[in-house]
């Protein structure tokens, strides 16, 4: 057998300890704020205090006089020199928003940048910010999308009638007719609050200037180095080759660092004009108001079913408060279009209709955050399925089993036109039911209720489209189809293999994953493989890390490049060893004949072919460097089913999670421990969404949650132990991989929401608005007045 994998222990599927974590655990990480360049200036921003106001005058004369202040830059000064952000064209656009990097004429949300101050040090820059006087003429603020869309409401942008940044209607099947004839119709309202990705490290950049090559080098805490490079060059009107983007260690991304924001672009402009490096690091208050928000939706959902609980059609009406600008690159369509379009989830739903809108308000723009749109789509449908189950006196598990897309029915095209294949929806649910001992949970629930305790059980199933190829737009309605990425494999002169790809990691250990995949393909020992993923000067073109795509794309490109590289390595070895190529295999970084009589190490072969190539034919010695692009064309569905048990304290409204069982199908697993970390981490964020996290604004558009003391994310005490199981089935992508970064947050919101609703329903209550804060729970129980 000449298959290396037959001899080697397979790396794919092993919990290899990631080398890339070593500096982080030793205090040797290099995060953005750790970077210092000689002669570096520091930048601070003056931000709007008003949600909506005309800028009458900006007087920076006092600030400019402060010793140590180098420059105060205003929006007026930038006009005509750089190109502002115009919303990405979207087929479903309501109107265009234009975002100046520093506000001109008008401010549209609290926290919008008005001036940039450059100083010798950060403290001086901040002192100078306080000395700038701004004369505002306040305008009425739009803070509620249901009011903002009415005729005569104040406009955030003149070009957006009724404040629509996005609007779409869709229908598949004769929905009216189905509803009219259906045995059962249930309806429900669902509200999800405004969220923050809350990366523990905020955004930031160091923009360096030098003469000649790479005039502009930008270190940025970001997920998409090449995208940043492309747009920096475009907006600063430079050649791309003059711009280099490097991503240092990054303290969380979750989509918040996948958009393009004004601050980093202002810094790049300042570095170029001052011809000095400048640094800006977001502080927490800035992060809360100037980095994108997420969710903030109201959904009215209806479902038609037959007498056995088979779903026949769904119809939804969706309002998303998308904030003041169309988030650059992705447009304002992310939440409104994905929530609506992905509503059917893992269920066999043949007809659907929706009306969805993204309404501009005077709040921080809404952008991508882990699992965009799907958590609320899924939770609203799961809650409604439970309501139908109650009405038809069916068990929530049974009704789901009747509606999930079965393996036999695949490939199955859903009413949203997505094709489900190679995905284990029903096995996931069955395993979670088994592992949670669901029937016993129900029995214990009855006992608990009988003894006056309020216990609820939630079951949620989800589908998560991962690793999207070029046939699916990640930004719906836009032309953005980031469906291909590249990896370069290079055997260095030392015989070490380097993998380069523009797929930065925020803890997903993509470097280790790609090394594992390459090791299996090439028979090279893991310790002889290194990886670099964060620098446009060394990585081939790639779109970056987001949308649960990185492992799929990185691994796929590595497999393709490895197959070509393997051919070249074996051909060279055959020449040097004077044996037929068919006799050769690679084991533990050595190329040898199957009978092991002849061999050459990769190190020796590299040295020879790079340094002593006199006798080697040129055609054979074309360098051991291969770049391959991988496009899976379509996406792969990952799946899961979560079962959650909660106890609700009817006096305080406090919710405690007492049991959490999750089963997921994430395809072929590369590194099980890493995958588990992704899933458990996603569940924790979903629990935060369900119970704690909410950005609050007052009616004037003033943010009320600007610190970590106001915006609560879960601590170790709110997160229970997660029992995780797998019902994996390989995808059609190369290697059988699926993405695993986002699915779990979807399941968590739905399962926890259903569990709370289940508990409250035992006392005749219910809850429609999340997070389920104690106050809302008490309202849901009728203890406090008001709607929940």
């Amino acid at each position, binding site marked *: 057998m000449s298959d290396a994998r037959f001899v080697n222990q397979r790396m794919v599927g092993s*919990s290899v*300890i*990631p080398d890339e*974590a*070593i500096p*982080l*655990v*030793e*205090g*040797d*990480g*290099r*995060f953005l*704020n*750790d970077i210092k360049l000689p002669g570096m200036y520091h930048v601070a921003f003056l931000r709007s205090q008003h949600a909506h106001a005309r800028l009458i005058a900006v007087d920076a004369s006092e600030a400019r006089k402060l*010793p140590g202040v180098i420059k105060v830059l205003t929006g007026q000064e930038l006009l005509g020199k750089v190109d502002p952000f115009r919303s990405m064209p979207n087929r479903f656009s309501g109107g265009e928003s234009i975002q100046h990097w520093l506000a001109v004429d008008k401010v549209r949300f609290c926290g919008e940048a008005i001036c940039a101050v450059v100083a010798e040090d950060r*403290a001086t820059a901040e002192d100078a910010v306080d000395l700038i006087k701004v004369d505002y003429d306040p305008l009425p603020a739009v803070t509620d999308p249901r009011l903002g869309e009415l005729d005569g409401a104040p406009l955030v942008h003149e070009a957006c009638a009724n404040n629509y940044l996005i609007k779409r209607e869709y229908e598949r099947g004769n929905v009216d007719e189905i509803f009219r004839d259906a045995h059962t119709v249930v309806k429900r309202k669902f509200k999800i609050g405004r969220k923050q990705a*809350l*990366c*523990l*490290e905020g955004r930031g950049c160091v923009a360096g200037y030098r003469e000649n090559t790479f005039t502009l080098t930008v270190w940025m805490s970001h997920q998409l180095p090449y995208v940043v490079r492309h747009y920096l060059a475009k907006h600063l009107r430079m050649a791309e080759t003059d711009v280099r983007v490097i991503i240092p*260690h*990054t*303290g*969380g991304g*979750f989509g918040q660092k996948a958009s393009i924001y004004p601050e980093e672009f202002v810094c790049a402009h300042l570095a170029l004009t001052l011809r000095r490096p400048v640094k800006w690091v977001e*502080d*927490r208050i800035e992060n809360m108001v100037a980095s994108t928000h997420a969710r903030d939706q109201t959904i009215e959902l209806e479902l038609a079913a037959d007498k056995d609980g088979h779903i026949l059609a769904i119809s939804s009406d969706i309002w998303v408060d998308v904030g003041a600008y169309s988030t650059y690159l992705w447009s304002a369509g992310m939440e409104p279009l994905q929530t609506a379009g992905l509503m059917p989830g893992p269920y066999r739903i043949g007809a659907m209709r929706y009306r969805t809108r993204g309404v501009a308000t005077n709040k921080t723009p809404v952008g991508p955050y882990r699992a965009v749109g799907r958590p609320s789509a899924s939770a609203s449908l799961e809650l409604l399925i439970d309501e139908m189950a109650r009405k038809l006196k069916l068990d929530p598990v049974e009704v789901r089993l009747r509606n999930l897309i079965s393996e036999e029915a695949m490939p199955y095209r859903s009413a949203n036109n997505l094709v489900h294949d190679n995905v284990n929806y029903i096995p996931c649910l069955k395993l979670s039911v088994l592992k949670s001992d669901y029937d016993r949970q129900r029995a214990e629930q009855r006992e608990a209720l009988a003894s006056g305790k309020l216990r609820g059980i939630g079951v949620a199933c989800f589908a998560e489209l991962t690793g999207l190829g070029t046939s699916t737009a990640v930004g719906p309605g836009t032309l953005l189809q980031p469906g291909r990425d590249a990896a370069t494999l290079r055997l260095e002169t030392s015989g070490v293999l380097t993998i380069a790809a523009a797929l930065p990691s*925020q*803890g*997903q*250990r993509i470097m280790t994953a790609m090394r594992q995949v390459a090791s299996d393909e090439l028979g090279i020992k893991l310790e002889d493989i290194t990886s670099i993923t964060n620098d446009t000067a060394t990585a081939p073109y790639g779109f970056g890390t987001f949308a649960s795509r990185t492992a799929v794309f990185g691994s796929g490109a590595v497999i393709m490049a490895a197959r070509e590289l393997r051919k070249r390595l074996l051909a060279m070895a055959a020449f040097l060893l004077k044996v037929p190529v068919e006799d050769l295999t690679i084991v533990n970084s050595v190329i040898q004949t199957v009978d092991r009589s002849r061999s050459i190490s990769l190190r020796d072969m590299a040295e020879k072919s790079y340094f002593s190539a006199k006798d080697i034919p040129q055609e054979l010695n074309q360098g051991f460097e291969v770049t391959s692009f991988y496009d899976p064309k379509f996406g792969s569905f990952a799946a899961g089913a979560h079962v959650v048990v909660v106890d609700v304290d009817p006096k305080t409204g406090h919710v405690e999670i007492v049991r959490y069982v999750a089963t997921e199908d994430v395809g072929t697993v590369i590194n099980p*421990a*890493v995958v*588990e*970390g992704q899933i*458990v*981490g*996603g*569940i*924790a*964020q979903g629990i935060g969404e369900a119970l704690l996290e909410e950005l609050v604004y007052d009616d004037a558009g003033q943010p009320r949650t600007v*610190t*970590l*003391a106001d915006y609560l*994310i879960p*601590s*170790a*005490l709110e*997160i229970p*132990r*997660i029992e995780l199981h797998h019902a994996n089935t390989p995808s059609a992508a190369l290697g059988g991989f699926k993405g695993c970064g986002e699915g779990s947050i979807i399941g968590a919101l739905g399962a926890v929401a259903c569990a709370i609703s289940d508990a409250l329903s035992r006392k005749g209550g219910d809850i429609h608005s999340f997070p389920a804060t104690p106050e809302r729970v008490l309202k849901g129980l009728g203890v406090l007045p008001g709607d929940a």
Partner: protein
Amino acid sequence: MAREQQIKLTVNGRSYEKTVPARLSLADFLRDHLHLTGTHLGCEHGVCGACTISMNGRSARSCLALAVQADGAEIVTIEGLRAEDGTRHPMQQLFLENFALQCGYCTPGFLITAIELLRDNPKPTEHEVREAISGNLCRCSGYQAIVDAILAASRLELA
């Protein structure tokens, strides 16, 4: 303009004498003046715990303290956890082996807190571990692997 003051202190076993502005935070002093950038800032508000260091044997939030308050103090940061020969502290090793970090931004604070916990309570229950680290926020891990790493460390003492 800023008033300055002289301080003397020990950090990771080395003594320093420095003149610092009165308004300089201890975190900024460690990061910018001593170049010990392993201590991270997540909120500068005393909530997230990323900046946790050990000061005179107790964990402390270096974002809330001023450098001048550390005059005479003995401080340990993440850079001081490894043995002189470079061997990782068992807690560092177990964080690594248990996959207890993803982005790693919160890790320095958790390590300091965890080491203090096991010093004061060598055999904590899972709940005691969760309680002890509840002042440190991690956005990536969901805490489970961190809890497991600390529990593994508590078992290690037995051997």
